[in-house]
């Protein structure tokens, strides 16, 4: 007999067996990812154009808005161009987070007709949503290069090495959030209703459309302890230069991310057992 007798009971903890199982189901993760992508990019031209246009349009709107509101003495064309690059980077990162959270949160509920019929590790669904958003994020990155060129940014090449690390951080932050949100949404539907509002608040609390340097210095540590703020600020440091965020708030932000991730996975694991009963 090539197969061992494997026991399942009501306890649900992350264990070695769970990781082995996730590895066994890796093809399903790919299938979910491919499914989401195919559906989204069925009309390829519109799909890609939309992903590219979104950060560009938001950038134009916010830069013109700030231009109208602000009467800076030093305001010059160069200033606006620099603002544009800052806003673009912020909006680009935020869009990834927002798309991942929105799609990830509804991923389980949208698939409840399958969840109540077949077993597979449920965490694959929200993770596939995050990967799908990551794909959009990388495509959006293609517009970044011409944008930086147009805005006359001098890329600080010695900083660029940090980008892959920040991306990994961002992906794990998204997985942490959707682990919480999707499983909560499976039991409590109002999470899905509250999410757009929360995302809007989050967007203004994080330096998406403005530079973090506008925050008063005494609030800086608290402000940058928000992982999203830290990630976007690091991104700007890597591509636009300027001063790097401090060590302490970065450590706190990483700690917050890890805490969210571990607690999120534990919570997901716990609610996974009752998911088919309640969803």
């Amino acid at each position, binding site marked *: *007999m*090539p*197969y*061992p*007798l*494997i*026991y*399942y*009971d*009501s306890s*649900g903890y992350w264990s070695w067996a769970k990781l082995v199982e996730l590895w066994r189901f890796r*093809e*399903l993760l*790919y*299938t979910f990812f*491919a*499914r989401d992508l*195919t*559906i989204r990019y*069925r009309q390829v031209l519109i799909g890609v154009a939309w992903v590219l246009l979104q950060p560009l349009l938001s950038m134009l709107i916010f830069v013109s808005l700030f231009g109208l509101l602000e009467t800076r003495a030093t305001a010059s064309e160069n200033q606006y161009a620099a603002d544009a690059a800052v806003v673009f980077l912020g909006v680009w990162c935020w869009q990834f987070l927002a798309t991942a959270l929105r799609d990830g949160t509804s991923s389980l509920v949208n*698939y409840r*007709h*399958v*969840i*109540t*019929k*077949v*077993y*597979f590790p449920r965490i694959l669904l929200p993770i596939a949503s995050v990967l799908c958003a990551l794909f959009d994020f990388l495509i959006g990155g293609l517009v970044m290069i011409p944008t930086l060129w147009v805005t006359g940014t001098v890329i600080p090449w010695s900083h660029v090495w940090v980008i892959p690390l920040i991306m990994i951080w961002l992906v794990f932050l998204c997985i942490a959030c959707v682990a919480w949100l999707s499983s*909560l949404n499976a*039991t*409590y*539907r*109002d*999470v899905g209703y509250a999410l757009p509002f929360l995302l809007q608040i989050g967007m203004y609390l994080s330096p998406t459309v403005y530079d973090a340097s506008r925050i008063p210095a005494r609030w800086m540590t608290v402000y940058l302890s928000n992982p999203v703020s830290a990630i976007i600020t690091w991104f700007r440091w890597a591509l636009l230069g300027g001063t790097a965020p401090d060590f302490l708030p970065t450590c706190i932000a990483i700690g917050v991310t890890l805490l969210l991730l571990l607690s999120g996975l534990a919570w997901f694991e716990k609610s996974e*057992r*009752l998911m*088919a*009963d*309640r969803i």
Partner: protein
Amino acid sequence: MTDIAIHVEKVSKRFTIGTGTEYARLTEALVGKLKSVSKSLVQSAKRKLVSDASNRDQRHVGNAFWALRDVDFRVHCGESVGIVGGNGAGKSTLLKILSRIVSPTSGRVGVRGRVGCLLEVGTGFHPELTGRENVFLNGTILGMSRREIRRRFDEIVSFAEVETFIDTPVKRYSNGMIIRLGFSVAAHFEPEVLIIDEVLGVGDAAFQARSLTKAKEFREQGRTVLLVSHNLQSIVEFATRAILMQEGRVVADGEPTSIVEMHLRHNTHSNKTAI
């Protein structure tokens, strides 16, 4: 005898029924939690209720309902077992626990190898995707590897008789084509343990006949099959052993003919008392 394929060990499953507001909204759940904290004075009384709820002698305790109570049996590799019992005896819950869709409240189940479920065909079909994409999606959801699907792809398609439409989105398929394709994928999956719930697959006689044929093929290959059916004739014909369930418990386990007889006798008896 041979190795154990399925081991159900003292499995119980409790459902909480109809208090309405429960679990509906996060805000309500949080308010509920606050209320229960403020009511901490009466908590000792509450604790008593909880201990009552874990009492399985009665099936309904408060708003707790025991769908399964201390179910315990083993199935050896290559056996085909029929499960009989009236409505609400816990058959479908048992199958759902075996296929890991829901987990037991207490006890544990052991299964050797992959479990295949013919509960409903075409699970996860997406209308925007083509037939080909849906075969891969549905197949991997059921538990097949992509390589396995590629190897058997032509067979799956020709069995479903949808060759010319395989690259057309499924939303343009007729209902019959969707069902054929879904069944074909499920029928080409070769799990170590096959579970068939004909009770859920009601309405389609052709589907029931086909799933029984599939189950027979499986039995010939020496795989383990679990069959739930209201059609007692098919259990007698098909199973090598039968289990009778009543009120969430296993009440008898043995040779199919005598188990079915016992089930019928119990039914007429309970009908008489009802009259």
